[in-house]
């Protein structure tokens, strides 16, 4: 039976891991290679590296990070942040990434998903969606701040429940998140990384309704992100939200739980897991 996956997410700025690196037993806590090895040994099923480097001249350091990590750590690596073209995808895959994730660039140019999937296969194209629940009154003032041309078919309507945000959650798009994920999977996304902006950072659990709505609509794997505060939250995302994988950052980075503890707990709840 295919197991559910636990995926730690590492934020990388100028080649250094930046969030929650207070493991006492690491020599150089900000070193991506050392942290990736650490999670691999604990039993992480995959790793996600998110490049949060603001300046474009810092981008090449991510290529170097991916090259170094993939020489030492032999589990799947997904790289996101600042990937804007088919050539960017190529560079990352050749450096050792197994998948790349698009976010803002997919909204700016949805066809980029199709071109990339045609070149490299759907299995290595992830679309990351930052979704926020729409307040009743804002439906009527739904405003696209993205500056991109948005297909009216996927725009927010009165029945819409979640809106897609881009630029790290800073800008609205006026796009209905449920319609968006259907479009991107048609275009060739092989996996969805779904972050609830309402839940992210709150540690009160993932947005189960959002996950469920999305899982119902697509046949590609869904990774839940945003909101994990304890081990039951991981189980809820899978059992109630029908997610295929759970991504978490702070509960692992700050040493609240180990991956091993998380897996043991999920196993006890009857979730198929690689122990």
């Amino acid at each position, binding site marked *: 039976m*295919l*197991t559910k996956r636990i995926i730690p997410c590492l934020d990388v700025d100028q080649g250094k891991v930046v969030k929650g690196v207070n493991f006492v037993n690491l020599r150089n806590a900000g070193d991506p290679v050392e942290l990736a090895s650490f999670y691999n040994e604990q039993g992480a*099923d995959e790793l996600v590296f998110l490049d949060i480097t603001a300046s474009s001249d810092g981008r090449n350091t991510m290529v170097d990070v991916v090259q170094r990590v993939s020489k030492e750590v*032999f589990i799947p690596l997904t790289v996101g942040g600042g990937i804007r073209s088919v050539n960017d995808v190529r560079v990352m895959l050749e450096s050792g990434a197994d998948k790349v994730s698009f976010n803002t660039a997919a909204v700016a140019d949805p066809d980029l998903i199709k071109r990339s999937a045609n070149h490299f*296969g759907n*299995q290595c194209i992830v679309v990351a969606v930052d979704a926020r629940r729409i307040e009743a009154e804002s439906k009527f003032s739904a405003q696209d701040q993205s500056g991109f041309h948005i297909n009216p078919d996927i725009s927010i309507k009165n029945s819409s429940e979640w809106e897609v945000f881009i630029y790290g959650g800073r800008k609205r798009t006026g796009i209905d998140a449920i319609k968006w994920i259907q479009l991107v999977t048609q275009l060739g996304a*092989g996996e969805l990384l779904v972050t609830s902006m309402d839940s992210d950072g709150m540690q009160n659990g993932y947005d189960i309704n959002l996950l469920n709505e999305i899982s119902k609509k697509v046949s590609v794997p869904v990774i839940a992100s945003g909101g994990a505060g304890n081990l039951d939250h991981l189980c809820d995302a899978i059992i109630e939200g029908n997610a295929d994988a759970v991504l978490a950052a702070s509960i692992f980075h700050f040493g609240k739980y180990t991956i091993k503890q998380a897996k043991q707990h999920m196993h006890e709840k009857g979730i198929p897991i690689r122990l």
Partner: protein
Amino acid sequence: MPRKNIRIGIIDYAASNLRSVEKAFTHIGAEVIVSSNAKELTNADALVFPGQGSNDSAMQGLAKASLIQPIKEFVNNDRPFLGICMGLQLLMESSEEGNEPCLGIFEGNVKRFSGQMKIPHMGWNKVKIIRKHPIFKDLPDNPYFYFVHSYYADPLEKTIILSTTNYGDEFVSAIASDNLIAVQFHPEKSGSIGLDVYRNFLQFAEANI
């Protein structure tokens, strides 16, 4: 430890993410050449045949590099050979994924997963070893490996099956016949157990050059 001078040739036919396979073999101390040149490849002690992408583009890539005949000869001469993922599927006769005939080393074809399961089959799944083989030496019972694929090989000759895996139905996840081994999963993405499989292949190749 493998003898230092055993040389692994990785077949480069522009249809795979072969860098990770190369990195994994390099990591365990093998001497590796990556090439699309038949002569260079057949001079190696053992061949590794990775693969990703679609059936037709893979077969066209092999034809373009004039590699179809040399690969068949290498296998027919019973030299050590390891197929990975698409490199297992292409050993069959034909594939539901495309129109190009495959290498036809084994009878049978390649089928698409059907039913309610999500496609691709992506993630860690259990490999049920049904026949003992050196490639699985010293592994735990029913080990987990990482899979990414939408199609699977269905060989007619059941005696070549080494392992099966469940995804809706049971499918063939590894085969072996003489000095040829082929696996549907990705050892280079399966952590330390995956590296053990590559170490086992090095030892197997060394013993069967």
